[in-house]
């Protein structure tokens, strides 16, 4: 039968039952009106937002805040901001473990995190598990609430949409759901079950991009991962960029702008700012450095020395690059990225 005369509207008299399936803590307030109050007050002035990493981390990231990093663990992560957070000894942060690999490894090295929405944590994909990150979870130093990559991504999306939750069809029936903070709800139209996942509005996020103007209009090449939603969900947003370009250049390809200026609080030009992670079309992952990091974690004394060399002994990202081979090294990674050297 053709559907053109059927009314699919729900009968409306079915009993609505909510069931709390996730028993773990919800770390952030999902309330959309609370978020609206914040975003109402956020400036729309298109002004020069350039600053330093040191300033931005000191101004926008406070002890106890809930923090999220853009990128995908070993790809396009905001390394300069993460290192500065460790240098400034940020404490008791909440963290979105959305395929967090090397990003989490950095923050764990500084004991910055005490709670985590865990979709993917502790591991560095095929490279192995981080001993320090494992220990932080195994000793209870970091309190986890479980999610999956999609449900955590949709939690950003719910926030980006200005909502307090989204329905999802995954995690149902598993321990991942039981150890999350999800609620089971019926669909008001079909009666079918969904996992309602709460909006995640981080206090602050940091995202590294290919280019931005001084106002924070940002363009990213390659995959965007969850950054378009994260940029909209975060109450404060720090942008580091490979380069700052003129506003005219942004206006030449507005279709490539994924983060508009009014979402952004701070812009810092940090060339090679994703190092040692992969920056699409620019430089490949420094696998040697990441493998060294994984290995040296196994020896406490050696790791202290390693941190002094790579974080505490560096005043900024230039120093960190210099400590690891400088321009010569990043040029090798550029050749790898472009498949000149495999």
């Amino acid at each position: 039968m053709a559907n053109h005369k059927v009314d699919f509207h729900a009968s409306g008299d079915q009993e609505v039952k909510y069931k709390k399936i996730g028993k773990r803590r919800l770390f952030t307030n999902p309330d959309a009106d609370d978020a609206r109050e914040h975003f109402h007050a956020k400036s729309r002035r298109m002004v020069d937002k350039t600053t330093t990493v040191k300033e931005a981390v000191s101004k926008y990231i406070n002890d106890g805040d809930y923090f999220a990093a853009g990128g995908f663990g070993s790809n396009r992560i905001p390394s300069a901001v993460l290192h500065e957070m460790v240098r400034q000894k940020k404490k008791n942060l909440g963290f979105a473990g959305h395929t967090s690999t090397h990003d989490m490894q950095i923050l764990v090295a500084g004991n910055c995190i005490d709670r985590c929405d865990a979709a993917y944590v502790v591991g560095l994909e095929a490279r192995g598990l981080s001993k320090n990150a494992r220990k932080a979870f195994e000793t209870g130093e970091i309190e986890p609430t479980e999610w999956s990559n999609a449900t955590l991504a949709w939690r950003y999306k719910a926030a980006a949409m200005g909502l307090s939750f989204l329905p999802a069809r995954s995690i149902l029936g598993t321990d991942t759901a039981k150890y999350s903070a999800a609620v089971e709800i019926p669909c008001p139209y079909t009666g079918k079950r969904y996992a309602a996942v709460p909006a995640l509005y981080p206090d602050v996020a940091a995202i590294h991009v290919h280019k931005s103007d001084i106002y924070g209009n940002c363009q990213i090449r390659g995959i965007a991962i969850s950054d378009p939603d994260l940029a909209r969900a975060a109450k404060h947003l720090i942008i580091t960029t490979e380069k700052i370009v003129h506003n005219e250049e942004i206006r030449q390809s507005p279709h490539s702008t994924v983060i508009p200026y009014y979402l952004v609080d701070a812009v810092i030009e940090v060339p090679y700012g994703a190092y040692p992670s992969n920056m699409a079309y620019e430089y490949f992952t420094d696998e040697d450095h990441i493998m060294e990091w994984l290995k040296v974690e196994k020896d406490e004394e050696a790791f202290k020395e390693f941190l002094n060399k790579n974080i505490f002994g560096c005043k900024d990202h230039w120093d960190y690059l210099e400590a690891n081979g400088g321009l010569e090294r990043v040029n090798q990674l550029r050749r790898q990225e472009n498949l000149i050297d495999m």
Partner: protein
Amino acid sequence: MSDYNGMELMICLASRYLEDDANVVVGTGAPCAAAMLAQRTSAPNLMIMFEAGGIGPQLPSMPISVGDSRTYYKGLVSTSMPEIMETCQRGMVDYTFLGGAQIDMYGNINSTHVGDYEKPKVRFPGSGGANDLASLCWRTMMITPQDKNRFTNNINFITSPGFLTGKGSREEAGLPPNCGPYKIITNLAVLGFDEETCRMRVELMHPGVTREQIIENTGFELLWAPEILDSLPPSDEELEILRNDVDPRRYIIGRG
């Protein structure tokens, strides 16, 4: 027939289950190698996707991360993680591959922890995208070594859903109907799932492997298909492509 190792056999067997003109979400490692081999043999129009946003790459080499730039090299689309996951939720993804520390007789997988949740003996990465892919893709496969500790019903934590507690339980929990575990490819056998009970069953046995060996290396009672065939070993052509084209540096097949 050439000599081959266990990893080469598993990759070849997995690749033959991937149909032409279908699509598959893969991670790095053996599943990626299986998909690349399928593209070069039986499924030239198989489309590969990665959960971080890569769609339809012409993979120049094995990616290291599921989000590195190889995953969309000469690709059709470089998009977002929500886009990939929503495509799965919409019912448009045929195959996926998972890994894990433990699997039970219904194909439920643990990749979260061993021990107590509050103070785990070993903390693993957790779901990542695995739960979503297992919930939402039509057919879920696994390439894994088979032993008693890994194939166990004393699973600590169900990270990703197999058939949960048996027939109908996925649907009862609210998961989309008619999808779930498909084939488990191990170093000993190819395991499928009994339609009535949704329990794991032996379908193919690798050359030289005995029933006793399979039973010894499984922590629960397996079912056996009415007719158990021998796994067809890799052909010379498959081996040549796998060794020279897919994994010339032996990153994956070197582990076999």
